[in-house]
């Protein structure tokens, strides 16, 4: 039985015309952001937002809750940082190495966990991610508590100097946008249709002759790869890969971002990531314990606000429109 967490249909079948206008507004915002905020902060937000989109792809598309997504984010970060710093790989190649390792790890996790569902799936992914955490603590190249610092940004295609914060920002923004549009496309692909149907009624999909485990595995690997992209870009843009990238706290944070923004909505994870990263920054400044606030938000969302911000907005909008029509 698949779990009905969130509901992707609201956005996936939403009007495509208004989507285009929204996209245009989004692109303008992306272009303007580094002039409004500190570019490094904006990059961090975008990387977390992309990570949240990756997680959302998994839960919104297949209904599988992973508690160990930081493993993929962290794998992307560590491998990209290591190849860029120690091997001197150029930006593109380091990025690819990071993504490839996250994808391979996703395949390993997926093959292990996909046969169990629901609560077990969550526990297994959490336990596997903890194993990766221990590896990051122990492997020689990860430098234990210090992590990999001062990762060089290099040049994009040997031309654009990424040490310039604005250049790095716009590369990050372009990658984020591509990832975001990829999720949108996946949900509106034949593959996405199959995933939605599996989430809706898995036994029926089996009886229709679909090998559902293969679809779920593919979606899981896809999500892991995208999380790897986010981690790899983050490591190079911020210049740092540390234990906190593979930590359980990061896995929990991404769950919260998606929950807060609205599971299964396209824009939700982005909204959630912006709010959580900003809150993190703000609260740390005034000495309020962040985990406590995060925990409280978790509980409030689950008890009274399960659609999340964007999910709620879509719901209200649809109801208002239905009311206007009647």
């Amino acid at each position: 039985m698949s779990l009905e967490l969130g509901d992707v249909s609201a956005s996936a079948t939403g009007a495509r015309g208004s989507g285009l206008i929204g996209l245009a507004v989004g692109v303008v915002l992306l272009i303007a952001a580094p002039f409004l905020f500190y570019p490094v902060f904006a990059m961090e937000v975008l990387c977390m937002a992309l990570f949240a989109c990756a997680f959302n792809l998994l839960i919104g598309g297949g209904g599988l809750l992973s508690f160990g997504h930081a493993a993929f984010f962290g794998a992307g970060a560590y491998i990209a940082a290591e190849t860029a710093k120690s091997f001197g790989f150029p930006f593109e190649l380091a990025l690819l190495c990071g993504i490839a390792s996250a994808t391979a790890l996703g395949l390993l996790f997926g093959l292990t966990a996909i046969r169990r569902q629901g609560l077990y799936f969550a526990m297994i992914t959490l336990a596997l991610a903890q194993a990766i955490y221990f590896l990051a603590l122990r492997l020689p190249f990860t430098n234990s508590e210090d992590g990999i610092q001062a990762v060089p940004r290099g040049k994009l295609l040997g031309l654009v100097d990424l040490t310039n914060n604005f250049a790095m920002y716009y590369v990050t923004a372009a990658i984020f946008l591509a990832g975001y549009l990829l999720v949108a496309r996946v949900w509106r692909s034949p593959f996405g249709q199959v995933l939605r149907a599996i989430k809706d009624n898995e036994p029926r999909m089996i009886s229709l002759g679909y090998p559902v485990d293969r679809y779920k595995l593919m979606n899981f690997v896809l999500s892991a790869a995208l999380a790897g992209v986010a981690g790899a870009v983050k490591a190079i843009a911020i210049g740092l890969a540390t234990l906190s990238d593979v930590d359980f706290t990061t896995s929990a944070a991404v769950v919260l971002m998606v929950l807060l923004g609205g599971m299964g909505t396209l824009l939700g994870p982005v909204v959630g990531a912006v709010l959580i990263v900003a809150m993190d920054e703000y609260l740390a400044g005034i000495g309020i314990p962040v985990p406590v606030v995060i925990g409280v938000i978790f509980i409030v969302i689950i008890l009274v606000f399960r659609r999340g911000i964007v999910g709620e907005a879509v719901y209200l909008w649809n109801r208002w429109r239905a009311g206007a029509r009647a």
Partner: protein
Amino acid sequence: MSATALFGQLLLGLINGSFYAMLSLGLAIIFGLLAIVNAAQGAFYMLGAFIAWMLLHYLGIGYWWAFVLAPLAVAIVGMIIERTLIARVYNLPHLYGLLLTLGLLQIIQGMFVHWYGTSGQPYNYPAGLTGGYNLGFMFMPAYRAWVVGASLTCCFGTWYAIEKTRLGSYLRAATENPMLVRAFGINVPRMVTLAFGTGVALAGLAGVLAAPIYQVNPLMGANILTTVFAVVVIGGFGSILGAIVTGLSLGVLEGLSKVFYPEASNLVIFLIMIVVLMVKPAGLFGQTR
């Protein structure tokens, strides 16, 4: 390698294993009745240790009183949380229960980190258990002997209570078919609250036992939780005895690996989990469904 080191690690493995057993036993009881995986189980373990420390530090109440009072306090906190928060998600998909308890974990842990930082608070061995015995092949610290004895007694006592007593038969019946048990006139919702209290009290008790060995650290719960989840996946939620046996033997295996290949000791349980999932996806004692 010396035999002393081997037996020392085996003993520590047995102690850790009995903590795993107590925590996963609590998880199994809670899961049976509530169909919820309690991610806050680690936080209740930490809470048990901290209440013991606070009793001593602020009120001067010693170990032996704490041994009784701390689990009780943990149970009360747990039951209040079950009634006020967890009871609201019974009609939602089970994952919401996991997410809710994850939020609880963050709150409880976050508060203690905020107040006490991440370095541990020392908690002395209780008077009377400070020395040790020379067994010839190894030195047996008295407190560790007590911990092994107390936690094994507690595990098997719980097993006995569930499998052999009338109250235990209520619990097993309600795990199988709660509606029918209610139709016999038994107040199952109240049982659910008590079961949650018992389940977290087991974690709290393990926390008290652990306090003098590992110090009292706000992060101790999160660290043990992932291992306990792996133990639960390996054993499966099928049987009470299975949870105890799996917990103990994995603790011992982990201890052994510390002797033979210390670099991998943190990983060994996770590797076993992967192998078990490949061979027997439902877990060693789980029912295939």
